[in-house]
């Protein structure tokens, strides 16, 4: 048996209503290319990509339309063949805005010609493999969107000995990763083997929460013949088991130091979706032009796990799921715990869009201005062992220094505190405010030092 129970678990965490039953049994369906794709140049964390096409150009699927805009940046490819209709700034799902390329599909959906599959990847060097990943424009598909090729090239001196594949999908409602593991376990496993080869690390742990027994079984089956040190780690179902630092602790019992990266404890965490994208990029030679997004929520008529091209507007996604029954008062890009609320359905999917969630008016809980009653529930729930109650009061009194002293920068914004808060205080927003304030102050100080 290639499975082991998680030996460790961070304290804190919460048990929200998961509601995964809405889509957990629904096979991934591919959505036809919509009438317009608006491909953002900021699909990831870091610098936006530089536009490589001009208005009126004809593009093919997989053709490069955005080149690296810096060291921490990701390439962008045309998700289908068609004509570039416009290049203009457009709002992103996260609330900002970025240059986007509008492509009108020609319906042929023709791939570019220079696609080179590497079924013989095992004979390739690590460096070549990383460049294939970089060329395919892969960013972390769990949500943060960190450029994968950067993650896969640790700086000299850092040794990564353990690869953790994140299949926890601890966010309520979302089932995209779950379905991928059930339906494409074999390909994910090959993706894992590619990463293993790149990093030269022996140990592989696939972390899955115990509410996905079929995914555990599927992954275990494909890993059965592996002779190396690999196993499925079964995590207790609890949010946020999928958070990087918490997951490393759960799987390995190691604490990533404050301000550090997983590589500081010799670990690397990749999402299952990213792993699959790596497989597609290397073995089939296909750049990343589509992803699975869970369109869900009680008001959605036909919720499902939709394989959609990047740049599909949220309105098109919803229409493909047969629209709404009844009213939706809140639209969230991503999961309910860390996703971004949308004020319209104009935003388009990116490499990080794991879900599109619609909430009924009665499910929407508004934050309020009630004072903290010091119940301590947030302190017990915080997986980073912070004291959100104290912090938020300090931040409300605009005492950012005190908050910095209490390590507000370690906050991962998972939302456990605000989930538990009986006074419905906007705790996460307070933390974000303080973090932004501290970062601004540090930048200012740096600028002062320079001048």
């Amino acid at each position, binding site marked *: 048996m290639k499975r082991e129970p998680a030996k460790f678990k961070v304290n804190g965490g*919460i048990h*929200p*209503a998961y509601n995964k039953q809405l889509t957990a049994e629904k096979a991934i369906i591919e959505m036809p290319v919509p009438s317009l794709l608006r491909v953002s140049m900021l699909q990831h964390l870091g610098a936006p990509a530089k536009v490589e096409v001009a208005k009126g150009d004809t593009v093919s699927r997989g053709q490069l339309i955005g080149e690296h805009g810096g060291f921490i940046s990701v390439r962008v490819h045309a998700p289908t063949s068609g004509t570039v209709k416009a290049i203009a700034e457009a709002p992103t799902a996260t609330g900002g805005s970025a240059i986007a390329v509008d492509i009108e599909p020609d319906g042929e959906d023709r791939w570019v010609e220079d696609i080179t599959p590497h079924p013989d990847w095992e004979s390739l060097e690590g460096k070549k493999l990383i460049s294939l990943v970089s060329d395919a424009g892969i960013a972390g598909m769990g949500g943060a969107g960190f450029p994968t090729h950067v993650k896969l090239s640790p700086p000299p001196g850092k040794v990564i000995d353990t690869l953790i594949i994140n299949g926890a999908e601890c966010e*309520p409602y979302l089932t995209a990763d779950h379905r991928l593991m059930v339906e494409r376990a074999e390909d994910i496993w090959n993706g894992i083997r590619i990463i293993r080869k790149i990093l030269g690390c022996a140990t592989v742990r696939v972390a899955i929460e115990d509410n996905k027994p079929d995914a555990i079984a599927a992954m275990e089956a494909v890993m059965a013949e592996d002779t190396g040190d690999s196993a499925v780690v079964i995590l207790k179902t609890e949010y946020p088991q999928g958070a990087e*630092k918490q997951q490393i*602790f759960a799987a390995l019992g190691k*604490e990533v*130091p*404050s*301000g*550090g990266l997983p590589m500081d404890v010799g670990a690397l965490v990749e999402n299952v979706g990213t792993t699959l994208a790596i497989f597609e990029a290397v073995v089939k030679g296909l750049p990343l032009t589509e992803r699975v997004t869970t369109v869900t929520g009680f008001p959605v008529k036909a919720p499902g796990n939709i394989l959609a091209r990047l740049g599909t507007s949220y309105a098109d996604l919803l229409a493909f799921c047969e629209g709404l029954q009844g009213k939706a*008062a*809140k639209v*969230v890009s*991503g999961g*309910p*715990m*860390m*996703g*971004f*609320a*949308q*004020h*319209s359905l104009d935003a388009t999917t990116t490499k990080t869009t794991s879900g599109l969630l619609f*909430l009924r008016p009665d*499910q*929407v*809980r*508004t*934050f309020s*201005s*009630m*004072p*903290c*009653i*010091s*119940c*301590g529930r*947030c302190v017990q729930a915080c997986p*980073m*062992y*912070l*004291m959100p109650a*104290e912090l938020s009061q300090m931040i*409300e009194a605009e005492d950012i220094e005190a908050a910095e002293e*209490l*390590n507000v920068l*370690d906050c991962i914004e998972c*939302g456990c505190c*605000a*989930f*538990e*808060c*009986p*006074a*419905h205080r*906007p705790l*996460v*927003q307070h933390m*974000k405010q303080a973090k932004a304030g501290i970062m601004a102050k540090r930048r200012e100080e740096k600028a002062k030092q320079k001048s």
Partner: protein
Amino acid sequence: MVEEQKAETPEPVLNVVSTSPHAHSGASVQRIMLDVVIALMPALAAAVWFFGWDALRLTLSCVIACVAIEALCRKAMGRDLGIGDLSAVVTGILLAFNLPPALPTWMAVVGCVFAVAIAKQLFGGIGYNPFNPALIGRVALLISFPVAMTKWSEWTIPSPIGIDALSTATPLGLAKTNVMSAGTLPYHFDGGTMLQLLMGDQNGCIGEVSALALFIGGAYMLWRKVISWHTPGCYLGTVAAFSCILWIVNPEKNLPPHFHLLAGGLMLGAIFMATDMVTSPVTRKGMMVFGVGCGVLTMVIRRWGGYPEGVSFAILLMNSITPLINRATAPRVFGHQRKNKEKAS
């Protein structure tokens, strides 16, 4: 500081947009307070059983007075009414439970003014008060009207000679005066005495007499996760351990631990007052420190202090150092080394 939904939004179809998380446990302050009120009901029933009309009179007048004063204060300060959170109801019931049955209504109302206006609303209302309002109300009354606040009705005490006698003192008060004057304890301890104290057939403040009823309420709050075991557990444990040591050292002059646990306001204090969220620590470790501190102070005041009962003062004193406890028991942040380890390495 939060912008509520604007009623006069120009277009009716605007989505609500906020930061994450977009899910919530459904807990609310109102629900927590309601749970506390529910948990207090068995004790209220016991109070009515033992003290009759007086219990009902005091409880009702305190609740009405507290809610009214809260509303008046909020109005005077030009803020939202905020009585919907039921915290004033809880304060009212708890204050009433801390009063002797014969106390005139007007005195109870004075206590409510202290509790709600001075100890709570002056600081800005729920969440901001550093001291437990009900206890401030009680202590203010105790100091202002010492005679009325220690006037008890008659009850049958189990006497050491075997003949039951009537007394108008509380079990703890009687013990204190007897030890001081005669140097001996006035009680005869057997199972019957304990049962009497457990059920609540004793003298005392209206809400504190029945340990059993308070215990039922505590169990309900534990089940509803309104409180955790840390504060009351450590409080009761410390009192038990402390009194046990004293008793073993000198059983002639010290009351046995079970007597300390069941008599007086300890159960009410440990289960309902020390667990008041606003004025107790937020960390588990802090709650334990808080409980132990309350226990030690209670026993010090009961044994050596001028008052027969030390629960109110002990909790108020611990309230005062709650911010310091919070600071001292802040958990080690994930990914940070413990301070002493840092020094060592």
